[in-house]
């Protein structure tokens, strides 16, 4: 009964509209967005070996990764919105802003398309573009993952990287919110 009264009061206070966001915010450490200082591991690496720049093949298809807490080795795989793509390029080919977020030529972006949230799973080797197979949005990883073609409304959020002790680490939170129109 007490709970019911509180619920009613909450709804009247306008809480209802912000609740979905509160519910969606995953609060377990595995679901938190990557944090500064997190290491990176391949999505399928059960040994949880921290990735180094040399592990990412140059000018090749994206490597899928999760962030990992460096202390307790919690892999932040609790939300699909945390899925990352890593690519490596010759730094001279990167735009200024992309270069500023790169570490030893490695750039990181969310793997979640900004259109309807599909995984940006394809790589177009001839063009050097990231490609979403759901609705064919095309992103340029060397230029901030800007939208080159297709219905995506905005670039992929980038995750700034650094190198510490030879390993790739997260240098700053995502540049913009990882989200899509969940219509």
């Amino acid at each position, binding site marked *: 009964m007490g709970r019911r009264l509180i619920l009613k009061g909450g709804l009247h206070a306008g809480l209802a509209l912000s*609740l979905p966001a509160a519910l969606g915010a*995953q609060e377990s450490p595995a679901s938190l967005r990557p944090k500064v200082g997190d290491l990176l591991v391949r999505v399928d690496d059960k040994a949880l070996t921290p990735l180094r720049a040399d592990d990412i093949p140059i000018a090749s298809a994206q490597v899928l990764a999760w962030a990992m807490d460096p202390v307790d080795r919690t892999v932040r795989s609790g939300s*699909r919105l945390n899925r990352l793509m890593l690519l490596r390029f010759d730094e001279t080919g990167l735009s200024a802003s992309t270069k500023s977020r790169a570490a030893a030529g490695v750039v990181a972006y969310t793997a979640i398309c900004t259109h309807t949230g599909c995984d940006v799973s394809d790589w177009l080797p001839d063009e050097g573009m990231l490609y979403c197979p*759901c*609705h064919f949005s095309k992103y340029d990883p060397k230029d901030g993952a800007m939208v080159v073609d297709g219905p995506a409304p905005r670039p992929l959020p980038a995750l700034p990287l650094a190198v510490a002790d030879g390993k790739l680490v997260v240098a700053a939170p995502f540049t913009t919110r990882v989200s899509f129109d969940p*219509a």
Partner: protein
Amino acid sequence: MNMNMRNPHWRSTVAAVLTALSATAIGVAQQRPAVPASLQNYKPVTAERLRKPEDGDWLMVRRTYDGWGYSPLTEITAGNVARLQPAWVVSTGVNNGHEAAPIVNNGVMFVATPGNQVLALDAKSGRILWRYRRELPEDVLNLHPTSRGVALSGEKVFFASGDAVLVALDARTGREVWTTKVEENRNGYYMSLAPLVADGKVVVGTSGGELGVRGFVAAFDLETGKPLWKVFSVPAPGEPGSETWPKGDQWKTGGGSIWVSANYDPDTNLAYWGTGNGGPWMGDQRPGDNLYTSSTIAIDLASGAIKGHFQYHPNDSWDWDEVSPPILVDYTRNGRTIKGLIDVARDGYLWFLERTNGRINFVQGMPFVKQNVFKSLDPKTGRPEIDPEHKPGTGKKADHCPSLWGGKNWPPIAFSPRTRMIYIPANENLCGTSIGAPVSYTAGSRFTGATTTFYVAPGADHIGEVQAWNVDTGKRVWTHPFATSPTWGPMLATAGGVVFSGGTNDRQFRAFDASSGKVLWEFPTNSGIIGQPSSFMVDGKQYIAVQSGWGIDSRGMQTRLNEGSPGNFPEVPEGGAIWVFAVK
């Protein structure tokens, strides 16, 4: 909201609210002080009305259980449709593909839109009576974020939410009566179809064929949402059809999505569902015929048992889901009347079948667009002989017509009993290539293992078509080509001798002469039309209703056409609206 989560009072309040709401899900209908008169006098939708609707009503997505998409109203005719004008238009407030039919019950209209939204409107004025919007998790998996419509029963409105939750709303208020989780969205299950209300149940299926799902159809109690039965479109070992999945556990991720609501025969209590392609996409990764993918299955609504099936092609490798179900039409062949099923399939063939109290029999099949994959059909069973040159595989690239989107995708055909013709929104001259790569399954991740290309056949002078075929002769009567656009337009036929459809990238909504195919009227709307048109009557006046709102696959196809011919297939403006037209 600025909320200090360390404050214990706030924490307990939020925890209590979360607990309460997570149990009932989070749908918030717009609050209104009083129920409008039209809803106070809401006319309950009985089983009898669903079976034999009043001429002026449109109570389910295709109006009748046979799936005809046909209105018996005759006020709007080939003679006066040129005077058709907008009666009202309302913005839906959301972008992306608007595919749902405006459903009308005694002057009250219900429209599902993207954004996981249902609107109730006064069908005569367009006044919004209530708005329901169900919030989705921020990480929802929904590769086709649209709804193809709602279903009605009694004083309830049923809505298949994108996160694979079935919702029953109070038709008078838009408030949730019950919600039931149909499947786990995190594992790739989502819904885009209109529920089917029949045999005293509400029945749905799930999408997710690109994500390694195992498709199914499930029935729920109308009053409580309690699950009644569930039947998979991919059989488990030991079940009939399992011999077509000879290898290991492939059936567990075998696909067979249900994209579109079934058509239904009340006399046999069988509902005919179209099923999606197998997963992953390349057939050589899942040997066998792979029943019941790319098929029609006849499900007994009393028990959920599969009583019959017809597989359009075995071991799909082209992404040819059987998206839309066959319509139920009795037609003649060689002097014999056949209780029929007619299906216009994504594989580019038009299929004439026979329905019984179980088994589905093959009668005739022929291509309705350029098709280079089938060499021939077995004259008795209809099973196609596949040309291996045009069948892609793992590491094997193959060219195929039609393209992965098929000769016709999900948009439904219509049938007029007056002209005895079906009307098909077809895409001619579209081909592509596919090649497979090994893929491993991770729950909720893409599980197709295929890369595709897409192109217009050399020398083609058009793409989209509206085709009319006489069901008794099996011959095409007329074709209207669209020179610079494909079509994604569901069809509406009317007793006034007029056929309506949008579907093209020029935003037009068109009226065709049902007999000749002549364009009698067209009107440019706010966006491209991929919605299912409907027709209804209020106060003795006939109206035509349709949603305009481009997106989903129509937009994807436009993007790929523009890749192949830059500048010639520009973006179509997005943004949804409900249009209602009448002759002034």
